[in-house]
């Protein structure tokens, strides 16, 4: 197990370093002078030059790369060019929205998908199963942003129950903040739930074919009890793996959903930073996301290895 852990951590470090290299190189290659973007079409050349010097853009790229990576190792992610604030603080502010959003979405999707998947497995081939499968197919096919717009049209414009977007800030109180997150979380959760429901169903069906389940049924246990006590725990392993893999989809989905609902989360920060050519923010956020995705997948691997020792031997 220890060797497995070390191998996993080394891969993680290597991936992170590669991510910094790739991100930096790509952004170097894209034309565009951040100082010029900030000052716009009315800018005087000397003002642009002064700003470039102030932002350190006149230094050669190896110096800037080393400064950036070195800073990150010390927890210093640099200073945003547009917001003139430390990136770490900006990211922390945005995570305070994106993490609860993702958490709420994860909770909702698991809360919807796992019971639905089990329900469908228990009624394989019948109307209930068919309905769940149809829901799953639709959830996978409908783009997330479209679904988000439909939610806004219904619950905000038509019924007036929710704001059409925006975020009042946590300092405005937990209830208004959570209210602002609820519709986006639903928009984010449903496509995830659709996929997850299908996977839960398949995993449950696989488990239902196992000998021990047949034994349990033969003993005369009611089917609901069999599903809950024997099928669910075993079906949860593939579901957890998928949940981990879906993390990156959740992040990508958050970028879209945050933009539709104008939620100032990490995804929207990234989107805006790209538009404003705020290289430091883009670099740092992308690397942070890459490392998080890799780390989450590593954690899932480790968790699965802890439950089931077989991958440890083959990995």
């Amino acid at each position, binding site marked *: 197990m220890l060797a497995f852990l070390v191998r996993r951590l080394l891969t993680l470090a290597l991936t992170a370093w590669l991510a910094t290299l790739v991100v930096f190189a790509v952004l170097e290659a894209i*034309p*565009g*002078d*951040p100082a*010029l*973007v*900030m*000052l*716009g*079409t*009315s*800018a*005087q050349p000397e*003002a642009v030059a*002064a*700003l470039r010097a*102030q932002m350190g853009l006149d230094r050669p790229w190896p110096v800037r790369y080393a400064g950036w990576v070195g800073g990150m190792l010390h927890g210093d992610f640099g200073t945003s060019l*547009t*917001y*003139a*604030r430390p990136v770490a603080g900006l990211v922390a*502010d*945005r995570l305070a929205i994106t993490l609860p959003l993702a958490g*709420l979405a994860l*909770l*909702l999707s698991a*809360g919807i998908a796992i019971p639905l998947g089990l329900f469908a497995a228990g009624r394989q081939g019948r109307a209930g199963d068919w309905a769940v499968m149809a829901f799953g197919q639709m959830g996978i096919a409908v783009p997330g942003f479209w679904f988000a*717009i439909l939610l*806004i*049209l219904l*619950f*905000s*414009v038509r019924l*007036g*129950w*929710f*704001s*059409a*977007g*925006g*975020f*009042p*800030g946590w*300092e405005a109180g937990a*209830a208004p903040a*959570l*209210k602002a997150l*609820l519709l986006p979380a639903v928009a984010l959760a449903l496509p995830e739930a659709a996929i997850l429901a299908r996977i839960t169903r398949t995993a449950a069906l696989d488990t239902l074919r196992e000998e021990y389940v047949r034994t349990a049924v033969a003993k005369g246990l009611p089917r609901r009890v069999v599903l*809950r006590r024997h099928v669910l*725990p075993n079906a949860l392993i593939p579901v957890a793996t998928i949940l981990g893999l879906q993390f990156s989809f959740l992040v990508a989905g958050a970028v879209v959903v945050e*933009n*539709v*609902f*104008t939620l*100032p989360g990490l995804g929207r*920060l990234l989107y*805006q930073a790209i*538009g*404003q*050519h705020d290289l430091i923010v883009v670099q740092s956020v992308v690397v942070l996301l890459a490392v998080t995705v890799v780390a989450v997948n590593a954690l899932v691997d480790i968790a699965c290895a802890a439950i089931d020792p077989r991958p440890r031997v083959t990995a």
Partner: protein
Amino acid sequence: MPNRQRRAALAVTMGAVLGLAGALAAGPVLAQAAPRTDLVVGMRLEPPHLDPTAGAAAAIDEVTYANLFEPLTRIDAEGKVVPGFAEKWEVSADGLTYTFHLRKGAKFHDGSDADSADVKFSLDRARGAESVNAQKGYFAAIAGVEAPDARTVVVTLSRPDGLFLFHMASGDAAIVAPESAGANKQTPVGTGPFKFERWVAGDRVVLVRNPDYDGPKPALERVTFRFINDPAAQVAALKAGDIDSFPQFDTYEALPQFRDDGAFTVMVGTTEGETILGTNNARKPFDDVRVRRAMAHAIDRKTLIDGVLFGNGAAIGSHFPPHRAGYVDLTGLYPYDPDKAKALLAEAGLPDGFATTLRLPPPIYARRSGELIAAMLAEVGIRVTVEPMEWAPWLEKVFKGKDYDLTLIAHTEPLDIDIYGRPDYYFNYQSERFNAVGAELDRTQDPAKRNALYGEQQRILAEDAVNGFLFMLPSATVQKSAVQGMWVNRPIQANDVTGVRWK
């Protein structure tokens, strides 16, 4: 976890989520008798920070101008220069000495007195070597700033500058205090009728009424600026009642549905945004005035305005807005005439036309206009490859690098006809004649003479067909019908809410 506990935990979590949803959905029901004293203003872009003296982003002024910060002079809703931090001023006969008399009771939001030392500090800071003021050129003519007493400031210029008072009315010339200037980006401290309350990054900036303001008190107690970039989200936010007023609403195709809805008012006014088909005058074949004139004849402005702005916008024939004094109507100089255009091209030795590239920045008006213009130019044999670009590469390549044939952009700075006299500007236009008139303008204070000179400059630009002069960007405002006092026109980029009230 044993299964029973797991089940219980799941049930509790789901129950909590559903309960929360129910509780949140039932919003407060309010019956309001008194007029509201708060206002939510929608804006497309979030300001990067809140210091108008350290950034060119229009969004900074759109939040802070006149509301939070005050320059010496101010631009009013009609575009005129009116008193700001200075209540009156005198200009010497030679146009070189400006004496400003400051308001007596002015205070900064932190309670400190605002006086001539602050003005001297602000102007010296803006023109200093370390300055990152985006409009440093506005201060270039200043030779010295004196503060003979607490309420008087004397500014001496090294050369006459006919636009000095106009430029001193810009957000870039806002009066700031030495103690607070460094922190204005995050916690702005000005002298205006509103003061900064909070900023929810990425979402909103909140200003509240300044109880100690020495001038007329605004009717609003609280103003929230909310930033919504996505067109569909803007429409939804207005319809859902989240936004009270959305100036510079550029989803023009949505205007009819708001006009038809009695709960909303739509106002369409003017801006300073001359939209042009930017032309690289140094490149072949655009160095030939006949080619540029041919293009001018090939463009049908009416179709362009209908197609891009859904009819909301005025055609221009030179780089000057129709609503400004000194405007000369030159839209008839090159009437839409494809045959004339073809003849001019043939005369220039291009009977079969030519191939060229049109580089378009991201704004929607640019993308839409670009497609239409490419089609119009194709009619006369000019084969245009449209190349959409992101903002940063556009600035780098087209604006700074002058590496382009044609481009399309609105120039939104007020009274910016002087850009045609800048030696290194991206049009690559050079005209001794134009520059001579410009020098005359700088020496002239008399409004009537200035207007005549502006007219002359417009004629020169139109005759030379420097760029394709297309239309003025309109300023559409969509708001709840009970909101009164928002500016209809945009003489400068500002959301001055000091005179806004609810019916």
